[in-house]
C-alpha cells in the first residue's frame, strides 16, 4: 500500500539519494575519500597505523583507533561554532566503534589509526555517510580489514518507513534509525534510533536500512575499483 508513495523530493520510499564516492583524494593522508550523498559533502582522511605518540592511548597488545567527526562552520544554515561539541564527540565515538570490528587491530600493537571525518556540507545523515566514506579511506590507506563497513539510515516520515532521510525528513519526520554493518556477514556495528516506532515499524526500518547498506556497499566497491583496477 505504501510502495507507490512519493516523498517530498520525489524519491520512492526505498530509494537512496544520489551518491558519489571517490577514493584517494588527498595527497598527504595515507588514505582518503570524498563522498556526496544528496546535499552532504564529506571528506575523510586516514593516518596510520602509526606508532602511538599519545602515551595514555597506547595499548601494548593491540592497536587503537581514534576518530574525529567535525562539522565545518559553513556546513549548515546557521554558522556552527568551530570545535567539538557534545554531538560531534558522541558521533566520533560511535563511528570508531562502528569501524573497529572490521579492523585487525591486534596485529598492530602500540600503534594507532587516526580517522578524520570532515563534514563540508550537511544535509541529513552525515554520521552514516561519514562511516561509509571512512571505510573507503581505510581501504585506500591499505589497512587490512575483514570487511568494508557501510552506513545507511531508515526512518519514519508521515507514518511511512522510508530509506535514507533527507534533512527536511529528518527534521519533520517521526523517527530516524541510522545503522552501520559489515555487508559480508550482515553484522551490525552501529545502531541508533530516535523517535517513535512500533516494534513492527522498527523491524521494517532495520530491514530497509540494511538493504540500503547493501546498495551503498556496491558503490564503495565501485569507487575502489575505479581507483585501483589496472586496465
Amino acid at each position: 500500500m505504501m510502495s507507490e508513495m512519493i516523498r517530498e523530493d520525489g524519491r520512492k520510499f526505498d530509494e537512496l539519494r544520489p551518491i558519489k564516492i571517490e577514493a584517494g583524494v588527498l595527497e598527504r593522508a595515507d588514505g582518503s575519500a570524498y563522498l556526496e550523498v544528496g546535499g552532504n559533502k564529506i571528506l575523510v582522511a586516514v593516518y596510520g597505523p602509526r606508532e602511538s605518540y599519545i602515551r595514555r592511548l597506547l595499548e601494548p597488545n593491540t592497536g587503537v583507533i581514534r576518530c574525529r567527526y567535525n562539522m565545518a562552520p559553513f556546513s549548515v544554515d546557521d554558522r556552527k561554532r568551530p570545535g567539538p561539541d557534545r554531538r560531534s564527540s558522541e558521533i566520533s565515538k560511535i563511528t570508531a566503534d562502528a569501524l573497529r570490528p572490521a579492523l585487525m587491530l591486534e596485529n598492530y600493537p602500540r600503534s594507532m589509526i587516526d580517522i578524520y571525518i570532515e563534514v563540508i556540507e550537511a544535509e541529513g545523515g552525515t554520521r552514516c555517510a561519514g562511516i561509509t566514506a571512512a571505510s573507503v579511506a581505510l581501504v585506500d590507506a591499505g589497512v587490512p580489514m575483514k570487511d568494508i563497513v557501510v552506513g545507511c539510515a531508515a526512518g519514519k516520515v508521515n507514518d511511512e518507513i522510508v530509506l535514507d532521510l533527507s534533512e527536511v525528513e529528518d527534521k519533520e519526520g517521526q523517527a530516524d534509525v541510522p545503522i552501520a554493518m559489515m555487508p559480508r556477514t550482515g553484522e551490525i556495528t552501529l545502531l541508533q534510533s530516535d523517535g517513535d516506532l512500533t516494534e513492527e515499524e522498527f523491524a521494517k526500518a532495520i530491514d530497509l536500512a540494511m538493504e540500503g547498506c547493501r546498495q551503498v556497499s556496491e558503490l564503495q566497491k565501485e569507487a575502489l575499483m575505479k581507483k585501483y583496477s589496472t586496465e
Partner: protein
Amino acid sequence: MDIVPEITRQSITNLVKNDKREDGRELTEYRDISIETNVISKAEGSARVKLGGTQVIVGIKPQLGSPFPDTPDLGVLMTNCEMLPMADPTFEPGPPSDDSIELARVVDRGIRESELVELDKLCVEEGKHVWMLFIDLHIIDNCGNLFDACELAVMAALKSTKLPVATIVDEEVVLSEDETFDLPINNELALCTFVKIGDKMIIDPTLSEERVANARLNVGVTKDGHICSMQKGGKEPLTKDDVLYCVNTAIEKVKDLIEYL
C-alpha cells in the same frame, strides 16, 4: 615530528643554489592553480582552491550582529582558520595553533587593509545591526604555501558571496527570502609568499622547501599594484635587498594570480 633529513636539506639547498627546484620549477614560478567557487550551497560564499597538492576550502557565513562601538556604521569581518588534522600528519585537533592563528591573521590583514570589502554597505541600522562576515578557512591538504592558497580562496569566495537583503520593519530586521545582493567589493588582491634558501628567495614553496628554509616573507598586493600587507616569518633575518626583490616580484606575480579569480 618535523625533522628534515640532512640529505633532503642538502639536495634542496644545492638545487636552489643552481636556480633549480625539486619539482623542476623556476624560482619565481607558481605550481598549478585551480579555483572553484560556490562549492557549498549552504554557505553564502565559498571556494575551493588547489595550489599544486595544497588544498583549502573556505566558506563565508553572514550573521547579523551589533557593530563595534567605535565603528557603529561598519560591517564586521572575522577570519578563522582550521588546520585540520586530516591535512598533515603533524596537525593536531584542538584549539588553533600559533601557526594557524598567524595564517588566519595574515590572510585577514590583506583583505582588511586593502579595504576591498565596502564595510559601510554592510550596515543595516547604524549602531544597532550590521552584517558580520565569518570567513572560515579549512585546510584539507598541506603540501606547502598555505598562505597564498588561503588568500586566493578567500578572495574568490568573497567575490561569490551573496547576502540576503535586510530591511527594518517596525524596528526589527526582516530578511528577504528571495532577494539577495552581491557583497560589495571594490578591489582584488593576492598574496605572494617567498622563502629564503641559501641566499635566494623562492616563490610558492613546497612543503619540503618550507621546512628547509629559515625565513619567510608574505607580500599582499592589490590589483592596482599597491602593497597592502606584509609579514616576515622564520628564525633567520632577511636583507633589505631580499625584501625589495620580493616586493618587486610580487607586484608582477599578483597580476597573474588575479587572472585566476
